[in-house]
């Protein structure tokens, strides 16, 4: 039982990162029906932005809390800038183009950003990330089940991010405009909503959350690398679909579910289909099963098929 609970905690932690990144996919998809494959790279840029802030901009001896806040802001600045540029120059000109054209653009942006960081980020590989929150500080959750401090931060960030985002979308003026744009962009425009601005806002919000995740990922593992976004991106997209793409709570729920499935598969899947080498396959099997029974994901609404 202790083992099971510990693995459950591990799964929730793993899922928290997926969930935070999935929020960005879900926001953008909900509004412009675009699978932004480059969103994983925005997450990666957040991690690198935070690292750059720490190693280059901050004087040594900055108090930890201040350093963390500044790193977060630095990471967000990089992520948001990249997302806005990407939206403006790669995606916006393609609105109204054949549906699949932006998909290839997204692929191009993804390759470009990865290679840009790999070739031009000043520090050589690997890039050790400062462990400002000590990973060997274990918090006992009872019954011998533990979680270390950076992991706890990751989980808290995911939950706070989800709650803040859904409150924003539900209650704020901009948020309601976003809902309107998602439901019917043409009508929204007729109602005086600046849909271009709303779309940029969706990219900005998604990028900010990705930056939070990039920072917490760096703190948790003590390293960042240009490829981290590609792997996490696919998982996060999976999580978003699992939860019902376009649905904010669904994205985080999907993330947790995917994380738990992968961890449990590592521990409990029947041999020889156990172990890390099969874990991702189990994640996708669960995805396919969920979609067969709930074609719009766990929390997705049954909307009439768009043409």
């Amino acid at each position: 039982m202790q083992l099971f609970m510990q693995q459950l905690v591990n799964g929730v932690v793993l899922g928290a990162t997926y969930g935070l990144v999935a929020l960005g996919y879900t926001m953008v998809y909900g509004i412009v029906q675009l699978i932004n494959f480059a969103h994983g790279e925005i997450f990666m840029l957040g991690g690198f932005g935070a690292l750059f802030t720490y190693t280059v901009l901050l004087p040594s001896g900055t108090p930890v809390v201040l350093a963390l806040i500044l790193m977060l802001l630095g990471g967000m600045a990089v992520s948001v800038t990249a997302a806005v540029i990407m939206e403006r120059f790669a995606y916006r000109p393609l609105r109204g183009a054949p549906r699949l054209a932006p998909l290839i653009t997204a692929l191009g942006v993804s390759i470009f950003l990865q290679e840009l960081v790999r070739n031009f980020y000043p520090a050589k590989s690997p890039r050790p990330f400062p462990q400002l929150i000590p990973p060997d500080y274990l918090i006992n959750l009872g019954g011998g089940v533990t979680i270390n401090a950076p992991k706890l931060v990751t989980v808290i960030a995911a939950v706070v991010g989800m709650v803040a985002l859904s409150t924003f979308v539900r209650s704020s003026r901009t948020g309601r405009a976003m809902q309107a744009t998602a439901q019917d962009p043409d009508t929204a425009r007729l109602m005086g909503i600046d849909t271009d601005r709303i779309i940029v806002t969706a990219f900005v919000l998604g990028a900010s959350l990705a930056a939070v995740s990039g920072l917490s990922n760096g703190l948790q593992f003590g390293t960042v690398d240009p490829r981290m976004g590609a792997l996490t991106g696919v998982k996060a997209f999976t999580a978003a679909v699992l939860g019902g793409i376009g649905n904010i709570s669904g994205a985080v729920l999907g993330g947790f579910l995917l994380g738990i499935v992968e961890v449990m598969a590592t521990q409990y899947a029947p041999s020889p289909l156990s172990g890390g080498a099969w874990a991702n396959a189990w994640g996708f099997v669960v995805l396919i099963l969920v979609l067969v029974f709930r074609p719009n994901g766990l929390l997705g609404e049954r909307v009439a098929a768009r043409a």
Partner: protein
Amino acid sequence: MHSSRIVRIGAPLIIVGALALSSCSSKSEGSGGGNKTLTIGVVAPLSGDLSAVGNGIKNGVDLAIKQANAAKTVKGVTLVLDAQDDTAKADVGATVAAKLVAESSVVGVVGPLNSSVAKSVAPVMASANLAIISPSNSGVDLTGRGALATGATQTRPYKSYFRVCATDDIQGPFAADYAVKDLKVKKVAIVHDKKAYGQGLAEAFAKQAAADGATVLKTETINPGDKDFSALVTKLKSESPDFLFYGGEYPEASLITKQMKSAGLNIPLMGGDGVDAADYIKIAGAQANGDYATALGAPTDKLASAAQFLTDYKAQNYKDPADPYGAAAYDSANAIIKALAKAYGEGKTGQALRDEITKEVGDSNFQGATGAISFDQFGDTNNKVLTVYKVTKGAFVPVKTDSFK
């Protein structure tokens, strides 16, 4: 409006050109003297995840060529490098291999990094009897060693393929003997990354460790590229091993050891030459202390040629480090250069030159940066000296050097 976009594409290139012009004013014309130009090829991943390792191989060859040209090792010949990017994929490897074979000036090839790529490269090389020496392929099949485990006779599959590195079936058992006999570990956990190198090494280790009398737990696998290994660590912790052998490369190994020790499972991690990299310690930090790695050859400080190589490598200011296979690539290139010097001295050209070089490489016998370089009749190195390193105070320190029997 469209054209301004075009200018935007062209502009960076023009700026590059302008920058270079402003920075260089004089240049010596190099290709005088009526020298014949011959080429040594490199097949390695030069872009993507493994590019740092691939570039280390390329640089090792580049250094050997520069030294040979400076010392005029091959009379009347200027050597040049033709490095081809295999992107660590078998099909791309076959393509660039065909490219090198088609280029008549290519007299030998160093590479590739991955055994899986070698399996598509080696047949193409063999079809033209063009010598290829790998600094890193550890898969047993490439020289037919796989047959040995089943008691069958070893036959050489690719007649022009050589390698200067230890195979899995040597490195794994060597590490296992050290762990079980010297460190006296009792209960060993085995983890690998389910890639050809990691799995081959881990299986060879597990077999020997069991034969030596240790309890070997069921092999665990990870997914390369992952960062969160807490599920694995929790599972291992519940089985309470006293030693972990990891088959794979340093990026994952460093994270595993760190997460394992943070979670309170304080056992040493041991890996092969894929873990023997300075970056392992950089990522894992203090938690790397007490871990082990094996590597081919005697430690660098005991080998003058190795220390000289590192000094020379540093002097070239390459972007990527020589670790882990730069020295072996340097030796591979030198084996080709020495063979070329002999064959070319005999006045051979064309296919006869390639044939003769392949033959001469097989007869290599010299002291390289990784130790004595010579090959058996199957293309494997005769150098069976291996060293165990232990991470002590943030550095790999040799603890045992021995010849594997």
